[in-house]
């Protein structure tokens, strides 16, 4: 198996988000340990919480390829991934990265000065990148959902119909019917 080392190019972009995908070779003998780590992380509340706080990661997945000999990380971020990597390193995301990528050949550790170079060498740029809602950032999505929840709470109040009659609230009234 040849190592996946590429000349670095930044990922494709849709709106404010860019895709980031990296592939590395699993250290022989570590396959089972890596699978166990990935499974354990699925139910790790600290990782979920860290993702929420970071607020730029839309979604990400780890995939074992080629009979568990290679590990793929596929993700989409608001903005470039690399500028924040020092910041991630101090969170549970950094810990999870080390626990996962630590089973991959040559991985220097998330706090290493060489980490960006290492990931750049292992990046594969997408051929196409699509999204149903290209405009919003993660923070805008979360904010919109919170607003929607609050708005629905207002609509559940029997006094809402009267309250929304004020001319200033016309755009909200228009959204209230369904």
């Amino acid at each position, binding site marked *: 198996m040849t190592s996946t080392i590429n000349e670095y190019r930044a990922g494709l972009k849709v709106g404010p988000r860019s895709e980031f995908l990296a592939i590395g070779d699993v250290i022989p003998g570590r396959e089972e340990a890596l699978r166990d780590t990935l499974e354990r992380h699925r139910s790790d509340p600290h990782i979920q919480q860290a993702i929420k706080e970071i607020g730029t990661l839309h979604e990400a997945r780890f995939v074992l390829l080629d009979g568990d000999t290679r590990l793929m990380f596929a993700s989409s971020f608001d903005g470039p991934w690399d500028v924040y990597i020092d910041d991630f390193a101090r969170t549970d995301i950094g810990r999870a990265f080390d626990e996962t990528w630590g089973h991959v050949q040559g991985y220097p550790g998330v706090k290493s000065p060489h980490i960006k170079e290492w990931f750049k060498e292992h990046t594969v740029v997408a051929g196409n990148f699509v999204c149903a809602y290209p405009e919003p950032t993660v923070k805008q999505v979360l904010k919109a959902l919170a607003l929607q929840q609050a708005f629905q709470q207002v*609509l559940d109040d029997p006094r*809402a*119909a009267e309250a*929304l009659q004020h001319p200033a609230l016309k755009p909200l009234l228009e959204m*209230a*019917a*369904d």
Partner: protein
Amino acid sequence: MTTDTGAALELGDIQAATLMPRPNPYAGAYLALRIDDRHAARELLRRLIPLLEPVSSFDPGRPVSLGVGLSFAGLEAIGVPAESLATFPSEFQQGMAARAAEIGDVGENAPEHWEAPLGSKDVHLVVAALARDTALMEALVVLAQDAVRDLPGVSPIWQLDVHVPPDGREQFGFKDSISEPTVEGTNILGSNPHEAPLKAGEFVLGYEDENGELPPMPQPEVLGHNGTYVAFRKLHQRVAAFRRYLRDNAADTEATWLAAKFVGRWPSGAPLALSPDKDNPELGGDPTRNNAFLYGDDPRGLKCPVGAHARRMNARDSVITGQVRLHRMIRRGTNYGPSLPPGVLEDDGAERGLMFAFVGAHLARQFEFVQKQWVHDGKFIGAPAERDPLIGVQDGGEFTIPQRPIRRRLRGLPDFVVNRGGEYCFMPGLRALRWLAELDT
């Protein structure tokens, strides 16, 4: 008569009961039989075949209709060779009970609560007998029972009598069986002039379907060709609970309005899409108008909620996830049990409901898809917390009634319908039935 692919639909070989509308008014019975001796079962088929009509000689004025289907266990029991059995689709091989989790038959609807022998491997052969009135029906049932006489190797194990109630409506009080698709290559007219005829292969095996393909067909050819699949379900309706729910959640004058929002039609059959504010019995009773509508002018559901039962079952031109034409079905509903007298709000303990029958060439893509995605999920209309308000297993589900100025949202809906059991059957063509009757295995 031909389809536009040039493959003539063999109307002389397709059982009339698959494609033709049921008599109306009607009285009838569903009979289930267990096959203990394959030779007796073949003799039974030889006796039944002369009683069956093909689509071609069907006369709408004809007073009786008989249909015959076999479950997978029934095909095994009658001696269909293993290499042929293996060519049936896996969901049919498993049967409806084994597919319970897939189609939302959970909780009270789970097979362990079904009425015996439904869901067991004993339901082999199903005969549906419908006639215009009780006297004719009894004669028809006697004919079917005569066919079983002196055949100890075939035992009737279950019967459900069905009948049209005096008001011609299903148990919740709504006119039903209004919307049926047009099948290309037949003279059967669908009721929606805005819907192009569906390819025959959606409903009969051996013909091109909406994907431009021949659906997978059981082999040998003589067995599969002109056959179709039927999924039948005995759906108990909690009429008193439905009425109480309406009373508790609507002002006196609004109870019918709320029920209509659940159903998508008013009790007369008038669609909310054409008569959004009040019932219109003249429209409801006019077969040329009561199904002649689309939803395109009502994307938000202000007239007919996007989650209403009828709109879920056939979203027409609504923007939803998926292609409506790949999930159409022929539906047959017949009432069983006594009607609950008007105004009664307390349950009298009677078994009443609707015997539902699906007819189509694709159990998985049609019946099971609709059960899973359109009845028991709301993501296709952007409402993951909602299920079919009328027939869904609710599990705390919600229902949104869009209206100005502010939508109404009902939470914690109860279940109004419980599945008492059902089965998947294969309804062979007449040639295939003769082939089954002459098996020498």
